[in-house]
């Protein structure tokens, strides 16, 4: 049997404060991201902020600067431009709240028809969203994440114990915040698809954490004389192999999505890749040590 991790004896618990610090920083990053999002200062996609996004395919490659000038002449000054896939495709984003009313799509069409005669183009996709829908979406997204968290705490507390539920919830929440924070730092767009990825990775990270908790529960039952720290340490070491492998297989699938899946789900797959890595990390270094917080109450676990 080929094994990546032969019998290991890593002291996860001993080094826990180091990892708590690291994770604390990551979570802080996520909180900063949340604050900036609510202030509207983050790179919000149009599904949250309202606005218009139009993707055009030209028959000949087009320079971004020329395109920007053409748009400015049509009075569209605050557009974000980006070449997509290859140079003859252009993605134009206008984040004005009254995008739909000012008929941005038509104005963009006219601007390019005038500015680049002879370079035929077609509209591959367009999205125009008024501000009311965006605000409703923000509320819904927040509600969705909150309900997920509560559902998770309840289920884990039910299957294990309340303490396990809290630890699992904190670890999962940490993962979501960390990925959100990283996306914020990379200045990637925060869209509904990203929220979907965050919820998915929350689910994944949790399954991972459950595998470790399961082993801890089993060991607690069989080795009653051992101090709690050792039981937890040993449990993590025992499941190192399987959590690593499950991480790798999911990672391979998501990496394929990232490299081959195309633009639309590029950010989505990036979020999932980060999620798999951070999720596995949190199952080892964060979730289990959290069980030790408030030592005196931890003794209750042993007796159960």
């Amino acid at each position, binding site marked *: *049997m*080929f094994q*990546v991790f032969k019998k290991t004896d890593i002291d996860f618990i001993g080094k826990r404060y180091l990892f708590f610090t690291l994770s604390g920083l990551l979570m802080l990053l996520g909180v900063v991201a949340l604050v900036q999002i609510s202030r509207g200062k983050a790179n919000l996609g149009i599904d949250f902020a309202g606005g218009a996004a139009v993707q055009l395919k030209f028959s000949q490659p087009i320079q971004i600067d020329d395109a920007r000038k053409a748009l400015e002449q049509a009075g569209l000054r605050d557009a974000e431009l980006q070449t997509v896939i290859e140079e003859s495709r252009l993605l134009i984003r206008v984040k004005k709240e009254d995008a*739909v009313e000012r008929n941005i799509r038509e104005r963009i069409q006219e601007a390019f028809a005038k500015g680049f005669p002879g370079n035929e183009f077609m*509209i*591959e*996709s*367009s*999205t*125009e*969203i*008024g501000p*009311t*829908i965006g605000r409703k979406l923000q509320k*819904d997204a927040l*509600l*969705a994440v909150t309900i*997920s968290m509560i*559902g*998770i705490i309840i*289920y*884990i507390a039910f*299957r294990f114990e309340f303490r396990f539920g809290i630890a699992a919830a904190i670890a999962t929440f940490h993962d979501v915040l960390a990925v959100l924070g990283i996306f914020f730092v990379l200045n990637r767009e925060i869209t*509904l*698809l990203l929220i*979907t990825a965050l*919820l*998915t990775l*929350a*689910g*994944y990270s*949790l*399954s991972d954490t*459950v*595998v470790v908790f*399961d082993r801890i529960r089993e060991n607690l039952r069989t080795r009653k004389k051992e101090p709690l720290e050792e039981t937890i340490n040993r449990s993590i070491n*025992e*499941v190192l*192999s*399987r959590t690593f*492998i*499950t991480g*790798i*297989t*999911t*990672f*391979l*699938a*998501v*990496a*394929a999505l990232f*490299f*081959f*899946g*195309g633009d*639309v*789900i590029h950010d*989505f*797959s990036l979020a*999932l890749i980060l999620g798999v890595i951070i999720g596995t990390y949190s199952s080892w270094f964060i979730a289990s040590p959290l069980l030790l917080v408030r030592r005196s109450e931890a003794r209750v676990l042993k007796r159960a």
Partner: protein
Amino acid sequence: MKKGIRGRLILILLTVVASIVFALPSTPVYSKLPSWWGRFFPSKGVTLGLDLQGGMHLVLEVEAEKAVDNAVERNLLSLKESLEEQKINVQSIRKEGREILLTFPPESKEAVTKIIDTEYPSLTTRQEGAGEKVLIFRESEVKRILDSSTSQALETIRNRVDQFGVSEPLIQKQGANQILVQLPGIKDPQRAIELIGKTALLEFKLVADFNPVVGQFPAQIEAEQEQNFINEYKDKISPDDQILFERNVDKESGRVTKHPYLVKKRAVLAGDLLTDARVSIGQFNDPYVSITFDAAGARLFEKVSEENRNKRLAIVLDDTIYSAPVIREKIGGGRAQISGSFTTEQANDLAIVLRAGALPAPVKIIQNVTVGPSLGSDSIAKSIRAGLAGTILVVLFMVFYYRLSGLLADLTMVLNIILLVGALAALNATLTLPGIAGIILTIGMSVDSNVLIMERIRDELRAGKPVRLAIDAGYDKAFSSIFDSHVTTLITAFVLFMFGTGPVKGFAVSLSLGVIINLFTSLVGTKVVYDFINSRKRLERLSI
């Protein structure tokens, strides 16, 4: 072969066959099947979401409040006419917000009250004095208008879309006053938007040619100057009249000008009395729309034309005058023509909206997502590539790390995918791009259960247990972890399903089905193979 094993193998085989049968309509192979296949077996596979097949997703908001305003205005004009007809002396009658203010000499009060009570049941008196009355709509009436606006708009839009000829449109109410319209595969989104969003209120109004103010009007004004013009003349016209414009396009230069008309505000005839509207070609090959009134409308039309000979009758659509022909003689037969520089397409669309009826209130587009079909097929191609790449990577890794048992796990994964696609097809679920990503995610996650089981088996083997017992123990002990991790993923998928819109819902469905199917295959599918091998010959060593 033990009975238990045979039963399970047959079950798995049946589900695979069923999946293939359900999924067939979505594959290119389907077109090569004989025609009788569709009669006995499922003929509709997976529904492609808008992001994959191209199309338009619109959310409209019905401005129901305006419907109430319009109703107040209509009642005001009608009341004014009634009072004039019955020669009741009234000093002034005007609208303020949603209230109608009347002032009259005290001796008229009784007559005024009588008319309001008998002919205008939806109006009620908020406040009155000896020589004045303030009228408002009854609460119940306001509520009725607000509620019915959205349903009426829904029906009207549905009628219009039906005539437009899109296959499988989706039109439904969303919330209190929003309407969702999805038009898959639509080729001309701009035309569709105009067709759907047009209020299409057709009115016939008498032109006040003999008013001296009209002499001061220029023949044409520039295209964008309407509001300035109206502001200039606002105070010179009576509150019974309004200024509307006819749009003229110079055939050679394409220049657009507007011809101002002074018309009576109160329409003598409206589009709700139409029974039909058809496109015909005129003398110079220019299309026009010929409309037919119902009996009541025809009678009214005859009366109006008889009483107003030599006056002009403006044909007004959404406050734009299309034409204003002179009434030369009494028109019986209830037919009229609407002409005015149309293309055939414009004439057709006009006929459609006239037939379907006017919207009770204006609608505003608050969300518009249009995806061209090329982007969709592009996405599908890329996803298939990603899926293949992911599958190959995972297969290779599993075989490398777990050898033959790994290969078994890989077969489970393939089984998973077949069953997942079959399940999606059986439910006619909508497949979106994130949904495909969900399927690919399932590829990675589906082996996880097998990994858990195999690691357990390895543990048991290392502890010295014989092969068959190690396998059984492995499955038993791993069950709890597998179950818990699947349920937690299901919780998040369920939340995504409840809160997500289109593409996200597609993802949630793929993920949920994938997880459930995986529970089935990992616990039943692989076990049966091990049991089968075990029953044939005693395994001394396990390739794991």
